[in-house]
């Protein structure tokens, strides 16, 4: 039987598809990174922004471009790609396409940390980092550690059922703690908590981005080793083991890297919802389900997606802003429901 041209069973298959996806989605992400800073609630002149003859403090256009927009777009790129990639890994790890980076309690842990910092924390910054991101990072790490300890036993593969159960339970428990802390907080603090939960990419400078980069790079580095193993893992743990996958190691790496990536993203910009599920599913609709293609494509598309959502957030009601988490939820919620309906 002859193989039709362009068929998946053709030899060019993976390599060619990977290359074209990297180029296509890479171009999209790059375009978003380059074009989004040009748009906003105000019109700026690029020529003036890059005019070296004007001292920086006098150059409002340069200020808007370099201080207000670029850190924001960069944060959108990092958070979007990290959450989307973490979503892909989490879905494969749990063998459940409806899983999100937040399913295992990382974001609720981060939220608890942030709420504690907002309510009881010192209002003075520690070093160059503010206390809220640090506390949310710590909360995310604690939550992941608890889930890990609950769900794993030395030397054995992780039971995804137990993992899921531990994550869901911890989510509920931490949510209750958050409500309790909020009850003890005054209204301003409670409101700031609510606002934090909606997510915000306006990080104000490059410093928090730089601070989150090591975590992001480590987790993306681990992600690079995972895709083929994730393919096999999502077919079944035992079957993956007999195909030569070290299931326990793969699961632990996936859990660790996805949690770390989520923790970094959430501590940088708050728990921005739906990116981690909408993007992987959109990407799968376009490029199929092979993780070697889905993972990099989701990372790139996630960057473009969140930059786009933030562009809507900062322009649609200008000069007032819509929280970016509201935009992703407005786009993502209906999409998620559609996915559910389509699956049943």
């Amino acid at each position, binding site marked *: 039987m002859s193989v039709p041209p362009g068929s998946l069973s053709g030899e060019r298959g993976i390599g060619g598809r990977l290359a074209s996806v990297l180029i296509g989605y890479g171009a999209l992400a790059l375009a978003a990174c380059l074009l989004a800073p040009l748009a906003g609630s105000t019109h700026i002149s690029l020529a003036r922004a890059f005019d070296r003859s004007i001292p920086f403090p006098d150059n409002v256009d340069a*200020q808007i471009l370099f201080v*207000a927009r670029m850190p924001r777009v960069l944060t959108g790129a990092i958070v979007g790609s990290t959450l989307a990639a973490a979503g892909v890994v989490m879905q494969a790890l749990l063998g459940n396409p409806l899983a999100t980076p937040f399913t295992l309690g990382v974001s609720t842990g981060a939220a608890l940390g942030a709420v504690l910092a907002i309510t009881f924390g010192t209002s003075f910054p520690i070093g160059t980092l503010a206390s809220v991101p640090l506390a949310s990072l710590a909360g995310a790490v604690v939550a992941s550690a608890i889930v890990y300890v609950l769900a794993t036993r030395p030397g054995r593969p992780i039971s995804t059922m137990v993992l899921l159960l531990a994550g869901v339970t911890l989510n509920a428990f931490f949510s209750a703690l958050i409500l309790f802390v909020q009850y003890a907080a005054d209204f301003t603090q409670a409101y700031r908590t609510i606002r934090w939960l909606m997510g915000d990419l306006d990080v104000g400078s490059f410093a928090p981005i730089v601070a989150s980069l090591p975590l992001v790079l480590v987790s993306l580095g681990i992600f690079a080793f995972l895709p083929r193993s994730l393919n096999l893992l999502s077919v079944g743990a035992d079957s993956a083991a007999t195909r030569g996958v070290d299931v326990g190691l793969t699961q632990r790496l996936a859990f660790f890297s996805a949690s770390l990536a989520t923790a970094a993203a959430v501590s940088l910009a708050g728990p921005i919802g739906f990116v981690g599920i909408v993007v992987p599913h959109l990407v799968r609709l376009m490029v199929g389900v092979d993780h070697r293609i889905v993972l990099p494509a989701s990372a790139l598309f996630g960057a473009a997606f969140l930059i786009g959502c933030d562009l809507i957030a900062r322009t649609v009601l200008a000069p007032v802003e819509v929280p970016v988490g509201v935009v992703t939820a407005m786009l993502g919620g209906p999409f998620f429901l559609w996915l559910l309906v389509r699956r049943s």
Partner: protein
Amino acid sequence: MAARQAKLIRCVVVLLLLCGVNLSGSLEPPRGPQRSASRPTVAPLPTGATRIVSLVPNVTEMLFAVGAGPQLVGVSSYDDFPPETKALPRVGALLDPDTERILSLRPDLVIVYGSQSELEGQFTRAGIRVYPYRHGGIDSILQAIRDVARLSGHPADGDRVIRELRSQLDAVVTRVRGQRRPRTMLVIGRDAGTLRGVYVSGGIGFLHELLDIAGGDDVFGDIKREAVQPSNETMIVRAPEVIMELHPGEQPPADVLRKERAAWNLLASVPAVRTGRVHLLYGGYLLAAGPRIGRAAEAFARVLHPDSFK
């Protein structure tokens, strides 16, 4: 500490914003206290209430100002001004009023938030007079003073307090008359050490009106909301000449103060930053919608027009 009370009031501002409520009743803020209310909205009790419970800290403050302090038998968990409130029983607050405890204090007047309609119904059914306080601009503050003064049997003191407040505000208006009005951003919230989570006063509410009286042009005055969360871009574009940051707490040590001021240096092109006109003000009175607004207006004016106070 007066901090908590002021913080509470600040939250009420924010909560009202959350509910999308515009209670100031006027889109065009008045240029002073001239338009303040003149007719009472409540009929005075035959004899003033003798056992009052207040769930609203700034109304508690009003009651003390009109001389009804000794009639208070219970206050909210956030009350701490004036210091006499510290000796009074605490009966919860907006979200967690302790109905039983309030009833056990056998009050004949309970002051609640306008949004606590269920609570209002409960006390009304129990035959207890209820005054629902509604938050708004300076007019509402003066009106509330007049109302609670009547309800507590001190109508004359109420009128006196209002007269004094008006003359304080008028004095500020007079002081800054003719001065150039700097474009001002009134910051009411910001995450420590960064330019994240910045909240500023919009074009509605007593803070906006106080800024107006103190001779400043609110750079966010066109946004008809009590609180606005501007992006860095918007702050750069609005280019305020003065940034006034209000903190309900005590003034921190000098090094922290310096660090917090330095957080604004990121927006290098903003005139207030370039000319060093970033001011951090500390004190509970700054954010309290009560009898101390005259003091707040003067504090604002001293920052905006230092020459007028030489």
